[in-house]
């Protein structure tokens, strides 16, 4: 039932970007795990730490510009994400949510910073680990609040349903809470970063190829490709901020759901 199509591009020169462009070689031959994304993750940790230590070290009533910048990010996460979503117990989760937001945001924005230009989250392992952390946090919180038996019962058994229907519904509920939620959380971030980076590669590499082509028409249209690539870079910036926000927001929503007394 599978129909395969074969398309051949005209000529043979242009190689479209593929998943191979994401498998970067190690920086030094001797250390196999030290690739560019790993280095960028380390860099992001250092950058985030240094920025927030500097901005909060000399805290004053009249804030300096640096302190204002740091505090507005912190205030955004604390008020708009944690307090509005989780409710009165929110202070416990602010450190986790804040770390998550700044870490994901910094790593995403590395995708469009010149010379770095690689979003580490386009390697699926990084979002997986973050989702496993969030998964652990929200189940731990729910179990701590309700006790393990009541918590699992609340997840698996919907009230107000005739007994035989549970055979149909309980597997779906369990699959939602233990499989689909962490999976969609990580895959959404991964897919957005992967597709965004690929999109930029297509237009920039295409523009480069067209510029070096022998036809005059190709040369003429090459600047349009570059211009579109630049416009998409701004679009990517928006997507990167949005994805960091959504990842944190969904984690907060799941925590709020685990804390809620009843659904």
């Amino acid at each position, binding site marked *: 039932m*599978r*129909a*395969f199509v074969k398309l051949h*591009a005209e000529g043979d020169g242009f190689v479209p970007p593929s998943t191979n462009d994401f498998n970067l070689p190690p920086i030094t031959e001797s250390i196999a795990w030290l690739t560019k994304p790993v280095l960028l993750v380390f860099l992001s940790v250092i950058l985030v730490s240094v920025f927030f230590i500097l901005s909060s070290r000399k805290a004053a009533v009249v804030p300096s510009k640096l302190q204002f910048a740091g505090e507005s990010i912190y205030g955004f996460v604390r008020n708009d994400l944690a307090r509005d979503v989780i409710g009165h117990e929110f202070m416990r989760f602010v450190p986790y949510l804040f770390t998550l937001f700044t870490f994901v945001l910094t790593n995403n924005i590395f995708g469009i910073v010149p010379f770095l230009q690689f979003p580490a989250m386009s390697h699926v392992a990084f979002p997986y680990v973050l989702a496993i952390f969030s998964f652990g946090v929200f189940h731990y919180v729910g179990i701590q609040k309700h006790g393990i038996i009541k918590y699992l019962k609340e997840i698996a058994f919907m009230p107000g349903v005739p007994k035989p229907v549970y055979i149909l519904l309980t597997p779906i509920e369990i699959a939602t809470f233990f499989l689909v939620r962490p999976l969609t959380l990580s895959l959404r971030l991964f897919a957005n970063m992967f597709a965004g980076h690929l999109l930029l590669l297509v237009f920039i590499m295409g523009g480069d190829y067209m510029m070096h082509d022998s036809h005059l028409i190709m040369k003429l249209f090459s600047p349009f490709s570059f211009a579109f690539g630049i416009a998409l870079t701004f679009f990517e910036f928006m997507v990167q901020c949005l994805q960091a926000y959504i990842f944190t927001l969904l984690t907060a929503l799941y925590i709020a759901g685990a804390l809620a007394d009843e659904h």
Partner: protein
Amino acid sequence: MTGTLNLVGFGLSAIGPAIATGMIFAAYINGVARQPEARSVLQPIAFLGFALAEALALFGLVLAFVL
């Protein structure tokens, strides 16, 4: 370039649910904007409509891989 035509079919079939979801939420936003107190009445209807449209889209996605 090789690939399966199923995914082209899925792309075409996803247009329908996409338009449907857009229309559902356009109507919902319109209704709530005109009459904010009707929100609690409209919300379940909007969610059910969204669920039905989304179910068709996901059904298409799964069938594109299964068939």
